[in-house]
């Protein structure tokens, strides 16, 4: 087999997610009453970018065979915080942005410290810390409100060169600046190794704990980027439990749709981004085809199940039943 075949099979999940997303988006755009216009794309992109960021955050942890059920709450907390501090003069707002991102980083570091040094289960830990983060969000914004620096908000939610949604450019920047180097860094490699086989990773002298800790930290950081972005879109902060919960669950759905293995060790954040965009497009498809919104969760659930089934097609070809358990 030549090199490109190996590379192709390595990125199969990501490419599949991309293909499905393009297919769905094409159906959506061609049936949209306004057609494939810059406006339609911009609106879809802004909504999609939110989930894409949270899904990307989730990917970091899932790759290490963990799970972060606090991503949605970090997302909500940083939204509330941003609605207080990303305001005023450009310099003040800039400092505010730094403050929001540091808060996300800190949330992730707390998760990581408890999971790794406290040796607790990721599921329980992040449910608990998520509740704490939500409590803080509620204290910050008992009722929805606040504001955001409008220049900054317009810059991130508008269009670049008149056609390209700025949110997608920002998303691409996050991928280029954070994900791609991470994937090729020693700590990123270590994260894949830990997720694939923690024992083998330890025996090979891989920095197991550092890799896991860093994954949680990155998860918190990227989730806070999502929270910041939500503030740009809504120009307010809201401590919504429903939002936090659904973003957490959707992030897991997006990760699966994007070809990331929940067992850890394989997949890519880029796949998770396409998974998120796909998941959003499903909702929009319902809208253009005039379905009752009541059906939306059900339909999304069915698509998710279908995607998971697609991922297990290989099971039907298996001739040795023991392989099922590998």
């Amino acid at each position, binding site marked *: 087999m030549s090199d490109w075949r190996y590379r192709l099979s390595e990125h199969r999940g990501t490419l599949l997610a991309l293909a499905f997303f393009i297919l769905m988006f094409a159906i959506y755009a061609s049936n949209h009453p306004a057609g494939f216009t810059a406006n339609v794309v911009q609106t879809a992109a802004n909504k999609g970018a939110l989930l894409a960021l949270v899904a990307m955050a989730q990917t970091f942890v899932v790759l290490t065979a963990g799970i972060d059920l606090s991503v949605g709450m970090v997302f909500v907390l940083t939204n509330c915080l941003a609605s207080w501090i990303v305001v005023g003069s450009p310099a003040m707002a800039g400092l505010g942005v730094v403050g929001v991102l540091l808060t996300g980083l800190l949330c992730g570091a707390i998760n990581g410290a408890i999971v790794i040094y406290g040796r607790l289960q990721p599921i329980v830990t992040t449910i608990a810390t998520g509740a704490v983060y939500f409590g803080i969000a509620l204290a910050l914004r008992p009722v929805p409100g606040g504001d955001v620096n409008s220049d900054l908000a317009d810059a991130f939610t508008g269009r670049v060169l008149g056609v390209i949604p700025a949110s997608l450019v920002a998303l691409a920047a996050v991928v280029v600046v954070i994900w791609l180097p991470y994937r090729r*860094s020693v700590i990123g490699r270590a994260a894949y190794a830990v997720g*694939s086989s923690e024992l083998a*990773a330890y025996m*090979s002298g891989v920095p197991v704990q550092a890799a896991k800790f860093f994954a949680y930290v990155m998860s918190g950081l990227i989730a806070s980027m999502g929270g910041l972005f939500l503030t740009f879109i809504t120009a307010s902060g809201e401590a919504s439990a429903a939002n936090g919960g659904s973003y957490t669950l959707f992030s897991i759905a997006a990760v699966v749709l994007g070809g990331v293995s929940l067992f850890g*060790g394989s997949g890519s954040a880029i796949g998770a981004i396409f998974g998120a965009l796909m998941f959003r497009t499903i909702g929009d498809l319902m809208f253009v085809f005039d379905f009752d919104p009541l059906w939306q969760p059900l339909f999304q659930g069915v698509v998710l199940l279908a995607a998971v089934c697609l991922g297990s097609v290989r099971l039907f070809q298996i001739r040795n039943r023991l392989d099922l358990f590998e």
Partner: protein
Amino acid sequence: MEPAAIPLFRMEGVSKRYGGVKALEKADLTVEAGKIHAILGENGAGKSTLIKVMSGVVEPNEGRMLLDGREVKFAAPAAANQAGIVCIFQELSLIPDLSVADNISISNPPKRFGLIDRRAQRRIAEEALAKAGAEDLHPLTPVKDLPLSRRQMVEIAKALARNPRVLILDEATSALTAADVAKVFAVLKRLRAEGLALLYISHRMHEIAELADQCTVFRNGRNVASYRAGEKSDNEVVELMIGREYSHVFPAKPPLAPSDRPPMLEVRNLSWSDRLKDISLGVRAGEVVGLGGLDGQGQRELLLALFGVLRGVSGEILVDGAPASVSSPSAAKARKIGMALIPEDRKTEGLMLPMSVGVNLSFAALDRISSRGVIDRARERQLIDEMIELLAIRTDGVDIPVGSLSGGNQQKVVIAKWLMVKPRIILLNDPTRGIDVGTKAEIYQLLRKLAATGAAIVFYSTDYDELIGCCDRVLVLYDGAVKRVLVGDEITERALISSALNISTPGEGADMASAMSA
């Protein structure tokens, strides 16, 4: 005595205790550069702990280690690697989702601008694979797509890429094919010439005879003897290992069953994929039929096919002369067929390591000791005690996790678990791999006892001595087909090896032809 040069590595008075169990007790070891040093001992003799201490996986309770005469302490495997001590573990240390190249430079990848340099990494991988004699492997293949024997070659390449000064091989050849073993041996001899110190742990005496310069025998956590290779006979060595006289390892064989007795298990024209080709065999009650040949010639697949694990098997399986539909392991286990398969990998296919000895023992037989879904605890307990006694399983009670038993005793639990279902047909997949001599002998006795009580036994082994000592008949497989059937006195090492390699030796051509046409 020559003037003592400083040895490359020395261990003095090292002890390691796990709870109250002494795994190593004031052990001494001297390893010299340019030598292959074999470590022998039964399971539980302290070999694994010795390696773990040397390679930084566990820290010793007392004693010291010297590298080039300077004291060293390793807090983690990475520290030992740094110092030049690299171990190829029996339990593979490869990461399944990463590629061969990623795995080879996992602990210290080449970097450019702070990021992993994939091109350099690829070059390192190609060089290391070439050094290990596995240049046929593509560096970009994910490790999970490789068969076990190839993974072992990657493991060796990975160790070599770290430029070790002391290389430890723990049963490194147990998963390899004969061709790979030859390659690895050539590599090891070259490394010795280059001045590395090699520590070679193996249960295979002929490998040690071929490779080792120096041997040290461990028993009960202590080094009991050290000698130059060739100074002691195999029997002397085995006596040192087991601490008592070596005799009667194999039980006497009863006379062959009359050939007109109908077989209890009969297989006609079994084929599967391209791995099993038109296999026919019959096993009578009271017979032990061996499967021989090189590793990986379809023996494992044949057992899995009989036990209903494989899909798409063609051909017929008859039990007591009636066609049996063995569609799954639970169908095979059911009373009217009464089949049991003692698996090869006890850790994943045979036991639930964290669960208790008792739970593991009764798991396969639950349907026999329960009525309407409720387990009869008294009956369960009684059967468990019977089995522990029958197999002389050494355990501190039935409630301790089975993972805390020694390897040999774990394997006895696997066997006992299947005996509890009272099988009439027993399939064994290399059941003595990695087990100490004493336990092996007990297993051989047990096989004969079971056969004598009317069981039909199919026994796959990679160890020729076992096939010669235990079996009434041996089917030698080659490339998925039966190449030759050896009966009674025909089962000799020479016959086994020549037919395994699919070569005919002078004087044997005729009967091989007759076996083929039969």
